[in-house]
């Protein structure tokens, strides 16, 4: 009996402690995430190699050691280590790469490793997790000069800023775009614009929501299983930002989904299925996987995808065919999401953070390694090998990049779309709950396709807004 009472007491005390801890919040209120060029006085770590003995640091990558991203990073780390050993035989930096196999696993480990002090010096972190580490990392403006930061594409910089801190260096970047089977689309007889044409005159470009729908409709033959467009679901960010309005506030604590812009976007995306421009994405649980194959085999004219798939698609449709003495399957191109009235390319991905709980020597070593990775030649090398977008303008000027662009121009064209940042002074939202909210929004928005596309749009819109609001409220702190 006494034992039971003791346990009950311990249990109650623990509960009270948890309650007290959860009551304590962040005192600081943030209206936005800050402006990278004005919020910080530039005072950076020394640029010299100032070590008296060899230093060993750890770098965690969220990739797997056997995929192309991980193996390329392993090669680059080896190149860095080799360079250090040769250049500084008595005071070299040795980086130990570790491949965690996914963001979720790595985040779990880091959550435990940071309080234990066993975290690495550097880690590759997804954009949705930047907010988690904001207090544990050093501001990247202590690592890079003003000019180096200006060299990074604006969209990538925006997703790296959170609560007035430049949290992570954007290194694993991608954008959402339309991959185009130009051969099939031009066979409709309608004009298919090019990225250059669009960028030359954005305001008057014919590439609008309505024109795109006409083009997709013209290319579709639903009775033969041929469609002008394929997508895993509506493009969330593009649906709103192309209308000049945001989905969330800057710190992703409030949603702006249920409004006339949302209704317009929902109606448009549903009409694409109703009018036979694209296959209903909720009919097959493997739809997302199957449309990738359908595009590669030429039964889909355009495919809404991440730019990180461009390299693989190009290899499959062009490079491998030519290597085996065949003609390319079709002509490939990329296009941004159509405008209404604005263009917008959602830029996202991952970055590298440097933890602030390590010794000064180790942090300086990590800084030197990150600077080496960021250098244009290395940046271009990584991008051309993996299909991630180069994040700096100078990287696209390197020989590595220009040579690669001769073979595969798609990545270069995708990068040209990076100027399509939010209009009206809007910024890309960054916050703790953003990724979760995005996930649920992308599930709930598919309500427009259920019941054979007959559900009430206002009802679906309301459901989405309520769900997202709940996620933001319960996960923002």
């Amino acid at each position, binding site marked *: 009996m006494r034992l039971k009472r003791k346990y009950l007491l311990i249990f109650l005390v623990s509960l009270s402690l948890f309650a007290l801890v959860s009551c304590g919040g962040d005192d600081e209120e943030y209206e936005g995430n800050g402006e990278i060029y004005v919020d910080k006085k530039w005072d950076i770590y020394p640029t010299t190699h100032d070590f008296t003995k060899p230093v060993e640091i750890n770098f965690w990558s969220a990739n797997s050691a056997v995929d192309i*991203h991980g193996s390329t990073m392993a090669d680059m780390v080896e190149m860095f280590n080799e360079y250090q050993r040769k250049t500084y035989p008595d005071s070299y930096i040795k980086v130990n790469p570790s491949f965690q196999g996914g963001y979720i*696993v790595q985040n779990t480990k880091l959550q435990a490793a940071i309080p234990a002090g066993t975290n690495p010096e550097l880690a590759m972190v997804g954009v949705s997790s930047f907010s988690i580490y904001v207090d544990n990392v050093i501001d990247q403006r202590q690592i890079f000069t003003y000019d180096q930061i200006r060299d990074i594409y604006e969209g990538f910089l925006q997703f790296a800023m959170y609560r007035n801190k430049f949290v992570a260096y954007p290194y694993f970047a991608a954008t959402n775009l339309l991959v185009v089977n130009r051969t099939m689309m031009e066979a409709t007889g309608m004009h298919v614009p090019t990225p250059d044409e669009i960028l030359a005159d954005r305001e008057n470009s014919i590439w609008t929501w309505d024109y795109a729908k006409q083009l997709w409709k013209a290319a579709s033959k639903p009775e033969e299983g041929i469609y002008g467009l394929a997508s895993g679901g509506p493009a969330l960010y593009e649906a709103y930002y192309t209308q000049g309005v945001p989905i969330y506030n800057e710190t992703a604590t409030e949603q702006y989904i249920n409004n006339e812009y949302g209704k317009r976007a929902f109606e448009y995306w549903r009409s694409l299925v109703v009018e036979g421009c694209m296959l209903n994405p909720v009919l097959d649980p493997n739809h997302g996987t199957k449309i990738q194959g359908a595009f*590669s085999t030429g039964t889909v004219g355009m495919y809404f995808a*991440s730019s*990180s798939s461009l390299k693989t698609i190009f290899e499959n449709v062009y490079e491998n065919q030519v290597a085996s003495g065949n003609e390319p399957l079709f002509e490939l191109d990329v296009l941004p999401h159509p405008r209404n009235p604005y263009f917008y390319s959602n830029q996202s991905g991952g970055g590298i953070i440097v933890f602030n709980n390590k010794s000064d020597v180790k942090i300086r070593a990590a800084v030197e390694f990150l600077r080496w990775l960021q250098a244009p030649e290395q940046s271009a090398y990584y991008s051309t090998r993996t299909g991630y977008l180069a994040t700096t303008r100078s990287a696209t000027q390197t020989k590595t990049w220009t040579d690669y662009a001769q073979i595969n121009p798609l990545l270069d064209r995708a990068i040209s779309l990076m100027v399509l940042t939010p209009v009206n002074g809007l910024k890309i939202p960054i916050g703790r709950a953003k990724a979760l909210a995005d996930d649920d929004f992308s599930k709930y928005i598919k309500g427009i396709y259920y019941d054979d596309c007959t559900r009430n749009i206002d009802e679906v819109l309301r459901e989405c807004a309520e769900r997202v609001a709940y996620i933001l409220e319960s996960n923002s702190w």
Partner: protein
Amino acid sequence: MELEKVFDVTVEEDHSYAPVITTLTDRQKRIIKIRKRIKYCLKIINYLLLIGVGLTFVYPFVWMFVMSVRSYDESILFSGGLWVNEWHWENYVEAWNRAQFSKYLGNSITYAALVLGLQYFFIVPAAYAFARMEFKGKGFLFQLKQLGMMLPGEATLIPVYFFYSKLGLVDTWTGLVLPSLFSMFGIYMFTNNFKTIPQDIIESALIDKAKNRQIMLRIMVPMIFPVFVTHFLLTFISNWNSYYWVLVMTNSEKLKTLPVAVKGLLKADGILPPWHLVMAGNIMQLAPILIMYILGNQQMKRAMIGGRKIKFAGGDKESLIKRGVKALVRKLNRTSKEVIFKER
């Protein structure tokens, strides 16, 4: 009305049995006929259902195999059919090389061997103690372990990782195998089966001054051999397939196992996965499990659902006692011989 004679058996008052001739009407005959037909139809339906259920279990494996021999172009269509236009056996070689199987296979074998080789030193004595010994806090300890079994591993991962990293156990074989050595599932399984062994056997062994260690190893463990084999197989399967735990508890590639490598074939960030290679990798990873299951499935069935040959847990009590006594006699004979030998 034509009558038919059939034999029936009735019990006489003097408790002797004698055949009694009864007659069946046409209606009764028809009912019997209909009943027979219904039984026959039900049997067919039963078989059809069994075949259907069996196919749903087999289909994913067959589909996985079919995908593994398809060309890249064919595999990316992700068709659910089982037809292969061109057989590409070289996919297996490519998957082997890409996922660096030769490197990770050794780690998988080491991991499984360490767990299987060491865990019985801990879980068998613990199970014996819970089943047969009385000590302070036994109930509480058992409940505590049960609680541990109920909590999903993912829920405790952060605190476990915290302590492991503090103790320097992350990225070491010790850290990797440690929790499996005290597997609650194993302790629970052995405890329950030890409890089913009749007390008479233990008592007769105690009368003959057998020690706990002797009772446990010489009498009880041999008596639950099918359970032992089942647990061995289940542990092998679970450790061979262990993905999340290995991924979390390792940093360097020197300890990572096959599932981690095969998962790596899927690639990250929405890039088209080479499904034909992923499936070839899965088949290769699955092969040892299938072989072990084929070899040990009879024992597993016996332990899981019981069978005529099982002589424990509510089975033939007499034969259990006989076997226990025989084992004890053998042991005592050996001990007495050893004593004589030592005395000489």
